[in-house]
């Protein structure tokens, strides 16, 4: 038994973190937040060099053939840097969806393009993911109609991978004349949302899944675990910054970290946050290797890490005093990232509700 990252995983994590540190200084983040479409082509190309788009693509299609655990570790690094990158949808959920749902011919066609970063998929759910906005589509023969609001990782998507309410997946090109989109700024300025209308758009059905609904949920679970990893990374950045600030800032002739009021708040943060790392690893490992626990741990990881991170975001902002509330420090970028991740692909309440259904704890399943 070995519940730790391997040397390779740690080395990959280090190189990703180094890369992000160089590429995403605060000024660059601010600039990207202002451009509002949330796509940084140079960052995308850098990720291709690092092999990130192919992380979950099987080796025979040119990918690294790794698992959700590797994706979750990468997500933590991305959340740490507040990287505006369509990672969750394009690089984690999409390759998994093709692996689970696509025919051999469809895999041959799409997976190498995903691994090479030549296509960028946004993954959209018409229901299942617990959205509060409009989310309904009809797949009729070879065309898709309907509307899904608030799709993440879609600002520079070349294609949509749409899961219907029945779990059936289909692929639609973003420049199909039957697709119309409007980009909306979100609370997280580095990550806008897309409202997508399909009006008889040409759709290629992925129909190799034996149980489409189960496959759609497996992809959703992986997405939730990856988001939990991202949230963990964002919360860790906020905590690290608050601890550093508390060692420097002087009030009443003392550094504020020596006051128990501040010290205890930060101790509370680390006490709640550190077990979240084990939880993200465990839930991610479950997606790869423990099928009986996969759904339950994904729901709980998304819910629990989101809840802990909300407290950490609040307390670490407070620890910065008035400066924490300003735009100047940029701390709010991570605060909002945590808020974004919390609501997307199912809120904590929704995820816990699904966990209850899984265990037969509800009256109406």
């Amino acid at each position, binding site marked *: 038994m070995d519940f730790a990252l391997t040397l390779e995983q740690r080395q990959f994590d280090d190189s990703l973190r180094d890369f992000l540190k160089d590429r995403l200084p605060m000024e660059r983040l601010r600039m990207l937040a202002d451009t509002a479409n949330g796509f940084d082509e140079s960052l995308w190309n850098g990720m291709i060099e690092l092999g990130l788009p192919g992380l979950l693509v099987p080796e025979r299609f040119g990918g690294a053939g790794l698992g959700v655990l590797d994706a979750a570790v990468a997500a933590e690094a991305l959340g740490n840097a507040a990287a505006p990158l369509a990672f969750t949808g394009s690089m984690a959920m999409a390759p998994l969806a093709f692996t689970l749902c696509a025919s051999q011919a469809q895999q041959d066609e799409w997976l190498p393009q995903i691994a090479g970063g030549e296509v960028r998929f946004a993954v959209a759910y018409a229901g299942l993911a617990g959205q509060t906005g409009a989310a309904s589509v009809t797949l009729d023969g070879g065309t898709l109609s309907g509307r899904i609001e608030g799709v993440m990782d879609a600002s520079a998507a070349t294609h949509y991978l749409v899961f219907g309410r029945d779990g059936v997946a289909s692929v639609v090109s973003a420049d199909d004349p039957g697709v119309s989109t409007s980009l909306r700024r979100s609370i997280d300025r580095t990550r806008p949302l897309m409202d997508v209308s399909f009006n008889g758009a040409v759709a290629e059905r992925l129909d190799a899944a034996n149980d489409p609904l189960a496959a759609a949920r497996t992809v959703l679970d992986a997405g939730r675990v990856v988001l939990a990893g991202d949230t963990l990374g964002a919360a860790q950045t906020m905590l690290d910054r608050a601890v550093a600030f508390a060692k420097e800032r002087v009030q009443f002739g003392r550094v504020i970290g020596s006051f128990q009021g501040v010290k205890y708040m930060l*101790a509370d943060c680390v006490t709640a946050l550190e077990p979240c790392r084990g939880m993200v690893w465990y839930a991610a490992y479950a997606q790869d290797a423990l099928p009986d626990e996969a759904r339950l741990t994904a729901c709980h990881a998304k819910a629990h890490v989101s809840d802990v991170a909300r407290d950490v975001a609040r307390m670490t902002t407070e620890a910065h005093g008035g400066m924490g509330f300003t735009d100047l420090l940029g701390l709010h970028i991570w605060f909002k990232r945590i808020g974004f991740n919390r609501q997307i692909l199912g809120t904590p309440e929704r995820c816990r509700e699904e966990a209850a259904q899984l265990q037969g704890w509800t009256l109406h399943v």
Partner: protein
Amino acid sequence: MDLTLSEPYQALQAEIRDFIRVHGDKSPKVGGGRKRPDQKTLDWQKRLLEHGYVGRTIPTEYGGAGKHPDVMEAAVIASEFARASVYAGLTNQGISMLVPTLLEVGTDEQKREYVGPTIRGDMIWCQGYSEPGNGSDLANAQTKAELRDGNWIVNGQKIWTSSAHYADMMFLLCRTEPQASKHEGLSYLLLSMKSEGLDARPLKTMTGRSEFNEVFFTDVKVPETQIVLGRGKGWYVANVTLKHERLMIGDAGKMTARLEQLIKLLSTNEVDGVKLIQMPEYRDRLLRLQGEVIAWKAHNLRLLTEAAQGIESGVKRMIVKYGGTMLGFRLSSLAVDAFGDAGLTYETLGEDSEADDATTWNIDYMYDVGLMIGGGSNNIQKNIIGERGLDLPREPKAAGRV
């Protein structure tokens, strides 16, 4: 990452499952405790010792199985007994604190005299650490011992001494070098609870039971040789004990067991004919706790892996006591709430009796508050987490603080 057990551990697992299948019916009831072990428990302990499921790493000449320390083996043993709800052996302060301390710093004579009887459960120890004026500030102990004619003469008072009312022996932290500094003036003595001048008075707690005692010393005579390591080394010895505690991995098994009990409770108890687990307000609290317990278990797997690899876990380890006691309290709080008004009946019926479920949960619920205070209160834990874990500066010393 790989959560499967490697071959030797699988073999150990299979061996224990066999053992439990054959002998499991002789196991005393799990839980309870806080009383002198009865004959059934002593017989069971002996059987476990023979198989090396307790005292596993203690050298054979002192009554153990003499195996090489292996954190993963310890985890397999603990989890197999927990899984089968079979008694995993005595846990008391003699076994978990005094024995490892003596093995590290005791004389050969002390080891021979005390280790065997203690791990067999024949000799019960209590810990003479806290004092009325010095709870969190343990090193400030004022109970004093003076050497006179080959004996230490002990005077003073200890408090929060669990099991003193039935213990045979005490390990005592006392001041023998009044001229030395706070930390260098202490010594660690081993003494009989039957010593003349020693008076242990049960201290009734909010649970209605007497889990603790006050112990008064009036000219208590302790032979000079009953010192561990030497004069002025008491603080060092006490810290050896704490170092050994670090190897005991936080009790995720207990949290899991409690969560399972809670799920059963909420699946059984009803209000107006509706099961609590189907009522969103109760269910959401249960689900939140289930999430926390999953995180806690995963955290413990990390600690276990690091301990097995000899990695110092730092802040990850420091959060265990604070985080664990708080989670424990949230679990027992939901249980108490699930009983509602029907759980208000409270009959502790003395120390030895088995209480009903509601009373047992109520005792846990209150005892959990005690756990937040004992063994370094949660505020002390937060100081440790902040100062040693996050490297935040210490509170400036108050005037007169040493």
